[in-house]
């Protein structure tokens, strides 16, 4: 347990409210290895984002803590870069300047000016955004903005890349493109990633492990699913793959049978051609 790269150790959090304190999370334990891709999945309001924010240091856990490479971390820092759902680019800086801001902050002492410049360009070309360096975020599409958001985080060379529903606000086609890009980059750089998602297909496609959370209040980890699909993964081939379908079923079962939450049905990738899962998504909505 102690040799894990990132350790979420008996984390719980309570929020102050007007009445009694609200316990959002309880007893979250999760060791993560270096280079692992972890997805957190669960119904809306179960506290997935809270977990991520605690790892990022944006929230303080009430009990327990986060240990990164043997050291406890409890405030935000560039070693745990966050990709926000709504890209969170500074609208008054160009694509280049947005990444540059992060690079300057992290490498001011270790890189020269030209090295920093090259590093910005390198990371933007990783996400295929080197053609729009001098555009403002308002002038590019949602998918492009999220690419820049990812480039900004990659450029910080974080120990852990935290992604808060990074593709949630995008249309299905753009989302697929970005998932492929992310897989490719992660395959190349071997980043340790913790990603929150609502999308079952996305979780199975990208992750090494899927962490499924129970419903709140006092949410915790329900089950952990090891996804042992060989990499590189191809979405077209996997669509028919029995293992993939099996993993998908496991997650859906957890979400719709064990943690039924009729108030907020999950978004399920309905473009899937798999009849069986179509059926399960329909029954989930009906429930």
């Amino acid at each position, binding site marked *: 347990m102690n040799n894990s790269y990132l350790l979420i150790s008996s984390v719980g959090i309570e929020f102050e409210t007007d009445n009694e304190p609200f316990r959002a999370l309880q007893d979250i334990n999760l060791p993560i290895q270096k280079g692992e891709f972890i997805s957190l999945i669960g119904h809306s309001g179960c506290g997935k984002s809270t977990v991520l924010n605690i790892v*990022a*240091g*944006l929230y303080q856990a009430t009990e327990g803590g986060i240990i990164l490479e043997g050291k406890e971390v409890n405030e*935000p*820092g*560039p070693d*745990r*870069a*966050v990709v*926000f759902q*709504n890209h*969170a680019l*500074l*609208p*008054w*800086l160009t694509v280049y300047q947005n990444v540059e*801001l*992060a690079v300057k*902050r*992290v490498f001011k002492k270790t890189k020269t000016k030209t090295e920093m410049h090259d590093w910005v360009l390198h990371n933007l070309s990783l996400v295929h955004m080197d053609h729009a360096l001098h555009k*403002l975020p*308002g002038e590019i599409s949602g998918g492009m903005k999220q690419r820049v958001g990812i480039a900004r985080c990659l450029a*910080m060379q974080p120990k852990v890349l935290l992604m808060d529903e990074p593709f949630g606000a995008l249309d299905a086609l753009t989302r697929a493109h970005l998932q492929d890009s992310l897989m490719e980059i992660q395959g190349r750089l071997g980043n340790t990633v913790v990603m929150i998602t609502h999308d079952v297909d996305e979780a199975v496609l990208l992750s090494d492990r899927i962490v499924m959370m129970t419903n709140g209040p006092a949410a915790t980890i329900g089950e952990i699913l090891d996804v042992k699909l060989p990499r590189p993964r191809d979405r077209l081939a996997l669509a028919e793959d029995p293992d993939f379908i099996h993993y998908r079923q496991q997650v859906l079962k957890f979400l719709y049978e064990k943690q039924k939450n009729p108030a907020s049905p999950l978004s399920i990738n309905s473009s899937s051609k798999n009849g069986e899962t179509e059926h399960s998504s329909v029954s989930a909505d009906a429930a």
Partner: protein
Amino acid sequence: MTEVKALFRNEQWKSIFSMNQIQLFLRQVLKAVTLPLAGIIIFLILWQSVASNITTSLGQFPGPTEVWEQSKSLVAEHKQERVKEKAFYERQEERNAKKLAKNPDAKIKTRTYTGKATFFDQILTSLYTVSFGFFAASFIAVPLGIACGLSEKVYQSINPIIQIFKPVSPLAWLPLVTMVVSALYTSDDPYFDKSFLTSAFTVTLCCLWPTVINTTVGVTSIDRDLINVSRVLQLSPPVHVRTIVIPSAIPMIFTGLRLSLATGWMVLIAAEMLAQNPGLGKFIWDEFQNGSSNSLGRIMVAVLAIGLIGYLLDRLMLALQRRISWDKQAILR
């Protein structure tokens, strides 16, 4: 033959295209010029007819024609005064030159011309005063607003003071400001006139609040995600303010500045009337006291000038905002 036909067709297309353009242009002209012009003409007609029915102890209430006459005479007076001034300096130079020719060691005196301030001199004085007061206020108010927006504690401690002083008419401050300025500003060779400082500080006192309040609101309503980006990057407070806080708050800061400048300009005129400090307000008061048959017309000219200048000041701030703001697409009104 076919080529010619094609060309002809092409020409036809062009002319149709330009017809459309002309129509579009005309429609734009109608919207941008004709309607406002119609509004102004109707207003002038109404004004003239109402004015001719009001008789005061100083004669007829000035209609548009009377105002036009008076504005011409104000221009003429201004030109006359400039001629006099020029003549004065020429005479003085001549006299000094003569003195020096007689005796190279002679002490010569140069006096500045102290003729009557014309309408246009008063406009300049007022503009100068309002900009001084406004800049002084902005210099304090913007940083204060940013501090209030960033720190709940600063806001909680300053807010009661703002709330109490905000509704006070700056004219209530005027006597106090006058006394304080004459007590504290006692230099032998003053760079500023005391009356100038009094008016300017009064303007400052009323320009503070809208800017402080709007800047605070602008700073507190920064997108949470951007603040989190700053926290993840561990930006230092000065960099945080420069790269995140100020750009996000710029629209609200400018809203505050424009409100401040508009009230500052209104208050300045009143302060000048009340304190008899040089400026447009004094011009109006002097004309009122003068009580000639031209007075009402001249006051009306001043009223229109005040409105026009207030409008131009606001446009100036808008242009400045357009220049400074990152969001060139934003529609500013």
